[in-house]
């Protein structure tokens, strides 16, 4: 039975079947429409696309950005990391991120509730934090919203500061 799928159907008339090219047009249109739909659906879904900003960019337009879902990138200031167990069900993880570790005056305070402290969360690590500003200078991380990159010293390079 299965071997039959390898044998050619005899007496096929290619001229006749080429009249069915409308089938291909319909199939192609449907497929393209489906692809366009899934992409638009993804962009219109909750979350949609996320604005990426640095700490300084964020601080410069804090009032307009408050309440929006954002991703802020910065370098972790090691001695600001603090983990507090509030009660059995709740914990709070806090740390500051800056754009320039050599001149850490413009700091953004990050707070994450009920997140484990990531292994890579340490001085000089690059943090990508997804969340929202609460309007009081605190940036609240989303659930699973903490992404940490290895400190660049593994590669022997100084942190590169984005403009």
């Amino acid at each position: 039975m299965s071997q039959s799928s390898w044998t050619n159907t005899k007496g096929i008339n290619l001229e006749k079947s080429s009249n069915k090219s409308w089938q291909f047009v319909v199939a192609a249109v449907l497929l393209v429409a489906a692809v366009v739909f899934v992409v638009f659906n993804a962009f219109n879904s909750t979350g949609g696309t996320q604005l990426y900003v640095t700490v300084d960019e964020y601080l410069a337009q804090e009032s307009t950005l408050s309440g929006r879902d954002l991703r802020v990138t910065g370098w972790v200031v090691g001695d600001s990391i603090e983990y507090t167990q509030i009660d059995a069900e709740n914990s709070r993880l806090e740390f500051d991120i800056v754009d320039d570790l050599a001149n850490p005056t413009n700091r953004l305070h990050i707070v994450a509730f009920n997140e484990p402290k990531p292994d890579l969360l340490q001085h000089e690590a690059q943090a990508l934090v997804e969340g929202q500003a609460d309007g009081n200078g605190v940036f609240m991380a989303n659930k699973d919203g903490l992404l940490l990159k290895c400190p660049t010293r593994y590669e022997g390079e100084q942190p590169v500061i984005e403009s």
Partner: protein
Amino acid sequence: MLAEFGQSAIWCALLAAIYSIAAAGFSVYRQKTDQISGQKWLSSARNAALITFPLLLIACAIMVMALITDDYSIAYVQQVTSRETPLVLKITSLWGGQQGSLLLWSLLLSGFLGVAWITKWNEKSLMPYALIIGGFTQVFFTYLIAFPENPFEAAPFLAANGSGLSPLLRHPLMIIHPPMLYLGYTGFIVPYAFAMGALMTGRLDDGWIRTTRRWTLAAWLFLSLGLILGGRWAYDVLGWGGYWEWDPVENVAFLPWLTGTAFLHSVMIQEKRGMFKVWNVVLILITYLLVIYGTLIVRTGLLSSVHAFAQSDIQWVFFGFMVFMLLFSAGWAIYRAPALASNNHLGSLLSRESAFLINNFVIMAITLIIFFFTNFTLLSELFTGQEYGVGPQQYNLATGPLFALLLLLMGVAPLTMWYRTSINHLGRLSLWPAAVATLLVIGIVIAGITQIGALIGLWIVFFSTGLTTLEYVRAARARRRSKDESWPTALGQLFVRNQRRYGGYLIHLGVLVMAFGIIGSEFFQADRQIFLQSGQRASLRDYTIEFVQADFYMENDVQVAQATVNVYDEDGSFITTLFPHTDIFGNGEGMTIPDARSTIAEDFYVILVNWEGVQRNAATLRMYINPLINWLWAGGVVFMIGTLIAAWPDPLDMKIAEAERRRVAVLAAGD
């Protein structure tokens, strides 16, 4: 001293690779007037290309020696290792950093190309062009390690000890994951070189496909293995209970895998029907460019990523090389397009060739979406001046339905015939699998699961699995009837007689099993984080944990904080004890190691949160339930076995190749 020697080996390899290109080019020129002289130049070009492998091997050996002997006069050794690093990790830190990774990349490339130059030497007309194209890529990567990313660069100051390998990379899976990816990446350069050879010579028959089919499968196998191992590493080490985050570095390894998959399918139409010749060339060109693009992204840190440790200035060199190769390849493809006309055209929408066409369309749509999403930050900055990114949720929403369509095709396409298939034929064959899949899904709904996406996904998985299984059953039954074989013999003979086909179906089954695991873990994962005192309990779904105590001890240079956690089932009966722990390395870096109770139904996965706050009688723990996750890994194993069967050298093919070699030898003697 050692460093200078390694450095010289790389420079010699670079010179040999440059010479090889020049000699191959000259051989084409000489061939026109003086064939013997042309052949000599071609041999010379090949020999020069072959010598790059031992030279780069020497460079690697010297680097390994420097790593083992703690030669901290070399900057790279300072960065990736330390005196306390165990021997095995000292050796594997050869690819623990940027420069070493590129060195290994170049070595593997020269090895792959070398084997191709030896085994495909009878492809005399394609050879000079393949040598030039392969050689050009070799020169580029060897140039990188010879100058901008020199692994033997002297350290700016002499340190007594190194910084040590990142703890995250000390995992056994991380040791084999990068070489597998590099093998996959570099392996695709061989079919590309021969495809370009075919374009440049105008020898556009199936020759280059036959020559490189097994290479493509091997490269694809390594890339698949690299991807699966990477996912498993993330699951075991990163402690988020996940295996795929749609991170740029993951995506760029997945992209050439996708186009490689499309290529492996569409070449079958060219072999059977002489169609899609342009498309096949284009697919392998795209795959090659995606390999270079992937290396560019990972090695230059161009896109923000959890993995991109590298930040470097080579991005413009890389970018220039990629654009040049793109223009060069595209130019030749366009120039030769008229000669690549199909021998046939598509008959019916319900045919094997149409099924392959739809398969290719869907795979390319997924590739395009992932590429577009991955580069969305760059694109948005270019057009709006602000960076916008796309999250995992968007990737899942956009690609999920298309992956589902691919899974459906996986089941249905093998039922179709070349030229055309009748609806009745398809309906008859899919009736039972459809009925069984529907019953199973109804059972799942009754069990209380109502997420529509998951139900559709599960129905497709059951349906396609049923269809694929029936393919084996029908074929084996036919053999039993005609040859009077037992079931196991008949099934075994299927793989022997048509390894490409039945190995291929096994790959499909592996993917379907993986999809089952992905649906389970994506839709039904649960987690809970809680602070417990000794003796206290907490539950997640049917599991209850009891925190017993935490222990602290030293193991070599590693300080371990380990929790003892008893696990009970819903009736309160003891199941097992888990020991999640955190390892704190000499340099202060921590690494969270989960412990899990794995069953075929789910993983119950516990991590010890925040080791600094851990006391002997109190700790914060996080529990995860990852339903069906082990099907993902099991499916991966089936997938690998299928690929091995499909790629295994076919005795018949080897006989044909041997006959061809003899024929060429006789012809050459006749000249």
